[in-house]
């Protein structure tokens, strides 16, 4: 499985005067779930696209540093080659429908046809991807007739069928209703359990805290930190990056309740309630 290594990545879009990414370095282990957070225009999408090779190979622009995925140096490989290793899912599910296929089943085949996958193998992969994303029941529907959540799961299935080792999701739920969001989160969690490396930009900090192994905090095109959700959300300077901690963290911060093992505030409901239970137990011991 591929390890991602980013070294001193700098990037500026063509016809702009300001860096979109400024000296970013970090690495990601195979199978990790990485959350990316940061306020608007902090460079989250650009970073995602730099790992998928769209930056710089689609946009051009000026580029410095190095991004490695496994043995591949991203900059040197064309996007249509890179997509076999790194898949990327975008915000708007509607714009990811190719518009050239009449059914969900055929839609998922689009990338496989372009990759020249033989028909028998193609069918196997489509079936697996539909199973994994739980969209078999929409197999024969027109892709445009799906709900947002279903459409986004179809988009993810289309990428999964290409069997990448890394999947990047750039705010995949921000245009969905609450039910659609939940569907997508469930699906992403399933992919992560299968051992696929996940990199996800998301504004819902509860979800970031719940799923991420580590969180990348970006601010104004620079990397502030990459660390566990506990460490990131316990930072005292979090507000200054325009990021709000999950509610459980805020409550515990208000009560000055730190988890003694980690020295951080809890970030999920489970973690917070475990802490409360222990405190209650200690309290009753003391009496």
């Amino acid at each position, binding site marked *: 499985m591929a390890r991602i290594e980013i070294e001193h990545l700098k990037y500026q879009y063509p016809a702009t005067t300001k860096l979109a990414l400024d000296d970013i370095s970090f690495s990601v282990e195979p199978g990790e779930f990485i959350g990316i957070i940061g306020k608007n225009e902090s460079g989250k999408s650009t970073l995602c696209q730099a790992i998928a090779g769209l930056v710089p190979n689609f946009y051009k622009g000026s580029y410095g540093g190095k991004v490695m995925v496994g043995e591949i140096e991203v900059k040197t490989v064309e996007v249509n080659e890179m997509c076999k290793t790194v898949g990327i899912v975008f915000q708007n599910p509607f*714009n990811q429908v190719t518009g050239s296929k*009449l059914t969900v089943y055929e839609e998922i085949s689009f990338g496989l046809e372009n990759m020249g996958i*033989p028909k028998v193998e193609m069918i196997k992969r489509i079936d697996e991807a539909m199973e994994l994303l739980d969209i078999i029941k929409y197999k024969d529907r*027109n892709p445009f007739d799906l709900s947002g959540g279903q459409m986004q799961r179809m988009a993810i299935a289309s990428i999964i069928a290409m069997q990448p080792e890394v999947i990047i999701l750039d705010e995949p739920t921000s245009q969905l209703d609450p039910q659609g969001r939940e569907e997508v989160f469930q699906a992403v969690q399933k992919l992560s359990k299968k051992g696929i490396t996940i990199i996800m930009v998301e504004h819902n900090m509860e979800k970031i805290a719940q799923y991420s192994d580590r969180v990348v905090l970006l601010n104004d095109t620079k990397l502030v930190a990459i660390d566990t959700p506990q460490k990131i959300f316990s930072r005292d300077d979090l507000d200054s990056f325009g990021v709000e901690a999950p509610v459980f963290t805020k409550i515990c911060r208000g009560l000055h309740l730190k988890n003694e093992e980690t020295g951080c505030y809890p970030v999920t409901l489970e973690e917070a309630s475990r802490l409360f239970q222990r405190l209650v137990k200690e309290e009753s011991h003391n009496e």
Partner: protein
Amino acid sequence: MKSISLYEEKGSVLNKIAPESKILYIVAALVIPYLIGSRWVSLGFIIASILLLLSAKVIRKTVPILGVSGFVLITVLLIQGLFRAGNVTPILSLGPVVFYKEGVNFALGIVINVLNILLSFCVLILTTKPSDMIENFVRKGFSPRFGYVFISIFQIIPQMTETMATITDAQRSRGMETEGNLFIRVKAFIPLISPVVMSSLINTKERALALEVRGFNSTIQKTFLNDEKKIPADKWIQLGMVVAIVAAIVFRIVLVVMYFM
């Protein structure tokens, strides 16, 4: 979801044969009557098209198409029958209104030609999935990129119409007048342009990215999920069409040669 494709799967033979066979049929239906120079041949093709459309159970879908053009054709018939220069032989008079043979005859020629064109195209369009047709072209070496553009137009145009409708609704709910005389409509249209154009530009960029990461620009030999649309008889159908066209060309040449001798 609306689609501007008129195709509908009915399990008929016409649904199963290769799109190329149907395209050759159109060529034959248009070229042969012209080469032979007889209205009766066109009429023969019209009857053939009707029989084909009946066998494919799609004849009813021709009604709206013929309805629109029928109106125009009747107008042509009336105007030519009444006023064509060179009208001398009256065939029908209703009081002061007189129809002349020459004009009606000329108009009938137009009517037959138009019907022949429409019906033979219907044979293709009503029984062929656009993507099957384009995929067959791509298999024969046509650029997949152009192929994509042609196929996606069928789905993306209705989608854009929908965006337009959504924005119109939004503008109307904000108190914009969108109905009424031409001036009001034009005035209402202007503020629509920018959101529609902007949103399609953004969408276009995003769609380009999404296609790119699914190997759209790959130079590898493409494979296909669907099998090529064709039946064994296609060879013979296509051969038959080509032979008929060539025979008509030969007939024409012989005619011309005989004329000059």
